[in-house]
């Protein structure tokens, strides 16, 4: 109870501060700029909540104050159960009320006609929520959480109820609210008026749904093209990934290390770079195109610009991910099953086809679906290679930035895209449920995998070797391309692109960052550095809650979180600008929106890595800590985090790198002030400045390799020491939670 009182006191102080000490509403020039301090507290723009009620004619805030006081009055009660109930009710009602008033009352008064007719017109509206309103929302969420804890929820653990409540609150605000806004946006204009005709018109647009390519008149709609591309990419990357996995585990291939190394590439390669390299090779003025034209007089064609080109780039980009998924699956097939098959007079081919392959089926389906979703979500390659044959993700982009400026079209396209990926995601979840035959057990399963049938052996090598050579060429191209004058015309070496991007000069004893890239480079680093620890923290906390706690609605919670993995970046981007451009929450143009976007986009991977690592930790370790008088927060800090160090580092690296390389959502959210490296590079490509674009990309890849290598060395050491330490104490549990794709460790391994 003493504990309960202390945290309640803190909450009450925080709530009081929200009403008294900070501006209630959003400050246009930024809260942290402190430009509001001189006018505080009397000017209407910057007044705190209490003054807004008293002297600025915003009486509805009084309801929030009332609910807060009700929650605070719980401090005077002693009966834990009724006190908890009061806090929970006040907190829950408070959050709902703040959300409702924020949505219902906008700049000029009621946002909805129905409320206007019921309550009568308001004398004035309100701007977006600011420090005061946001703080109070959090206070209410915690009232709710602590109230539940006092009533005995989650074994009375306030840290756990608080974490769960905050996570649900954040995911609602940053994932579900934007998606919901997007749905609303499809029937609205940018000014918010209701106009369903845009939705209806776009839904019926033959440009989206036409089946012309089958019936024989014209092109197919963009929805079908995207679907077709995704299926082909899924198939292509699965077959390639399987070939790779077989080579890596079932043959005497001499370059297995190199093969594994290649799998790191896709996470450190900005997604459009492959497309860019392909252009340099096969584009109209690509080296190979020119060579062929010179040698055989083959007319340079535009075949690369379209679905074929995108497909090649995507298969190249996503094969490594598929490989990572499938290598676990291929290794998971128990050798003794294959040996058993052979003793039953089945030859190698029969064993492979009748035993090994069927056992891998769920894994193959998984790899296919991952390729499918990644292809749907890919934005960079179609942007570089699509030309006029766009896919959904690029069409969404052009619907908002282009001359069309049609938000309802963007919303419709985004909804279609989301429907495709979510369907695939659900199919994956439900179809694969309980179908994991991976037969790795804790028991030593001796025996060796049988060799591949000869034909198959040749086949997989025939796929893998050219791919490796090709990849090496592509990356060589990327490095080389930054050093030639004008690609395709003048191949003399130069460092002028690097100089243009990264030049530094010294003036008056100070460094001047004169290169054009520095601005976006530092912004990128800053945002990546801020969002990486947040992502890791949110991801691992979520993993802890999913693995270690049981509560009502847990499955829904986990499902909702994982689902955000299937939301394509483009959809996130468009939904963020639709949602956070207007009250009650305005964040567009700020660094905050980029950070929120990265945290909630990359979190599922952190969650997955955390789940995998956490399932290896004996649960009795945390329970022992609890019975030793440590509360959950201390348990987390002293026991779980130290044992999870490798997973933490992996999550940090992953989210850092992803924040640097991603483009699809970012391109919607950058502003003049906060421009990110990738969107800057895409701008360069659009201007035809390939040299600088490539130089910048190479630099990013180099920076990330350095960072990963640095982390790897750190983690590597720790891990060795830790494994010595862990060995032999707690009984090891073999877990196989990774049915969903590569875990973080795998990715950076």
């Amino acid at each position, binding site marked *: 109870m003493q*504990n309960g009182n202390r945290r309640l006191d803190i909450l009450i102080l925080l709530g009081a501060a929200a009403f008294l000490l900070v501006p209630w509403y959003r400050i246009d020039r930024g809260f942290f700029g402190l430009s509001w301090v001189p006018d505080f507290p009397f000017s209407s723009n910057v007044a705190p909540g209490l003054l807004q009620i008293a002297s600025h004619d915003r009486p509805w805030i009084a309801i929030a104050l009332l609910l807060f006081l009700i929650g605070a009055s719980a401090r005077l009660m002693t009966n*834990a*159960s009724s006190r908890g109930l009061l806090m929970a009710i006040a907190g829950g009602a408070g959050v709902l009320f703040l959300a409702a008033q924020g949505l219902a009352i906008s700049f000029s008064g009621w946002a909805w006609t129905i409320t206007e007719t019921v309550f009568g017109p308001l004398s004035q509206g309100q701007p977006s929520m600011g420090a005061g309103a946001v703080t109070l929302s959090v206070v209410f969420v915690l009232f709710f959480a602590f109230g539940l804890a006092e*009533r*005995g929820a989650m*074994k*009375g*653990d306030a840290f756990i109820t608080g974490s769960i409540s905050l996570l649900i609150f954040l995911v609602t605000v940053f994932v579900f609210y934007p998606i919901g806004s997007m749905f609303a946006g499809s029937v609205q204009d940018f000014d918010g008026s209701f106009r369903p005709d845009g939705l209806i018109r776009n839904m019926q647009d033959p440009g989206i749904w036409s089946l012309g390519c089958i019936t024989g008149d014209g092109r197919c709609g963009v929805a079908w093209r995207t679907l077709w591309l995704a299926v082909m990419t899924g198939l292509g990357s699965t077959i390639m990934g399987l070939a790779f996995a077989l080579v890596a585990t079932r043959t005497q291939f001499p370059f297995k290390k190199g093969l594994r190394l290649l799998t790191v590439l896709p996470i450190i390669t900005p997604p459009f770079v492959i497309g860019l390299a392909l252009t340099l090779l096969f584009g109209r003025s690509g080296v190979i195109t020119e060579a062929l034209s010179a040698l055989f007089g083959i007319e340079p064609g535009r075949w690369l610009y379209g679905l074929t080109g995108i497909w090649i780039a995507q298969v190249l980009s996503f094969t490594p991910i598929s490989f990572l998924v499938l290598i676990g699956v291929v290794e998971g097939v128990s050798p003794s099953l294959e040996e058993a098959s052979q003793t039953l007079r089945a030859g190698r081919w029969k064993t492979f086809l009748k035993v090994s392959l069927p056992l891998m089926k769920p894994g193959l389906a998984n790899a296919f679906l991952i390729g499918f979703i990644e292809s749907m979500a890919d934005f960079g390659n179609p942007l570089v290679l699509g030309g006029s044959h766009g896919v959904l993700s690029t069409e969404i982009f052009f619907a908002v930035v282009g001359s069309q400026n049609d938000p309802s079209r963007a919303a419709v396209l985004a909804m279609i895209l989301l429907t495709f990926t979510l369907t695939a995601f659900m199919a994956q979840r439900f179809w694969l449920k309980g179908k994991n035959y991976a037969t790795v057990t804790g028991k030593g399963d001796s025996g060796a995998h049988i060799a591949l049938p000869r034909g198959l052996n040749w086949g997989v090598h025939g796929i893998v070797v050219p791919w490796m050579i090709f990849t090496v060429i592509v990356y060589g191209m990327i490095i080389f391309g930054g050093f030639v004058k004008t690609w395709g015309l003048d191949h003399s070496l130069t460092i002028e692109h690097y100089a243009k991007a990264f030049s530094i000069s010294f003036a008056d004893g100070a460094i001047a960052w004169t290169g054009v890239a520095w601005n976006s480079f530092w912004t990128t680093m800053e945002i990546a550095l801020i969002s990486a620890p947040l992502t890791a923290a949110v991801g691992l906390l979520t993993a802890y809650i999913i693995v270690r706690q049981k509560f009502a609605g847990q499955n829904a919670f986990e499902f909702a979180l994982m689902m955000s993995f299937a939301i394509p970046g483009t959809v996130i981007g468009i939904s963020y600008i639709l949602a956070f451009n207007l009250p009650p929450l305005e964040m567009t143009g700020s660094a905050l929106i980029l950070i929120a976007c990265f945290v909630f986009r990359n979190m599922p991977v952190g969650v997955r890595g955390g789940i995998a690592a956490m399932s290896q930790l*004996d649960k*009795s*370790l945390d*329970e*022992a*800590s*609890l*019975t*030793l*008088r*440590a*509360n959950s927060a*201390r348990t987390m800090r*002293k*026991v779980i985090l*130290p*044992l999870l160090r490798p997973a933490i580092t992996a999550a940090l690296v992953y989210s850092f790198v992803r924040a640097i390389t991603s483009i699809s959502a970012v391109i919607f959210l950058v502003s003049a002030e906060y421009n990110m490296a990738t969107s800057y590079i895409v701008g360069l490509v659009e201007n035809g400045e390939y040299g600088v674009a490539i130089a910048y990309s190479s630099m990013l890849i180099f920076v990330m390799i350095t960072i990963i290598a640095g982390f790897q060395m750190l983690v590597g050491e720790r891990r060795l020491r*830790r494994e*010595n*330490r*862990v*060995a*032999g*104490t*707690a*009984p090891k549990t073999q877990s196989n939670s990774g049915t969903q794709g590569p875990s973080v460790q795998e990715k950076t391994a």
Partner: protein
Amino acid sequence: MTTFKPGSVVFEHVRKDFGSFTAIPDLSLTIEPGTLVTLLGPSGCGKTTTLRMLAGLEHPTSGRILIGGKDVTMLPAHSRDVSMVFQSYALFPHMSALENVAYGLESSGLKGKEAKEKAEEGLAQVGLAGMGHRLPAELSGGQQQRVAVARALVLEPQVLLLDEPLSNLDARLRRRVRTEIRELQQRLGFTAVYVTHDQDEALAVSDTIVVMKDGHIAQSGAPRDLYEAPASSFIADFMGEANVVPCSVVSVEGGMALVRVGDLEHKVPSSGARPGSAQLAIRPGAVGVSERNGSGLAGKVLTSAYLGDHVEYEVETAAGTLFVTDHTVTTPLPSQTEVSINLRPRGIALIAA
């Protein structure tokens, strides 16, 4: 020297559901301060669940739990005055033995140095003085077990909980460690709740044994009472093997009952039985087998196995097949031998139910 204020434990109509499955339907139990009580029962009967509710790791669906007279039903694990020795020990692998023992002390607000000193003391108490710097992985199974006990004991809890603390030790060590635990408990005088599924262990260490079955208490009492006066055939069989055979109680006189099995008559403590039909628990060692000589119950040897210091028989009789261990016979009887069965004075109990 550590000083304990041993606490009592009370379960009042505690019920525990896991989803739609009821692990504990309605449990009421009182544990006197300073005693060692074992929860004994087959796997899955709800022993661990009961213990975990006491620790605060599970919360009851309904009912109340009191420790030292205080209602702790809603209290989280870390604010309860109990501590627990885990089946897997759950030593933190990244902390040394000393750090492990000091952990709980530091969590309760003791300063680093003080905590270390007390932890050293705790390690010395379990005979591990000077081993504090070792990591758990560098200790043997028995030593790890003792670190786990020390870690729980230094907190001087009102109640110490032990969940199958010996199950990860080999048979020889088990006997020694259980004696050590019992000695420690009697020396320091704390209340202990000890979970096991091994009746030998329970008989060896307990003041009171609580036998559980399907989430219910089947019987509780002193070890001797349970062994000698089982309340049901389940208890009789669980507390050391027993042949449970139907019998009829002929008469009850002065605390002794005359019972008849087939044409064999025998006197046993009456355990409150009344004349009529009843059941008799016959320990395998309480049966004498000899070649058919007219007296006793007639039977025929079905199987016979020579095990060095004794012989095991299965004997078919009119009262059912009896399992018999014979420590006296010099020449084993081969199977199919016609035999006479006699009952010895000890090792036979009337089941009251």
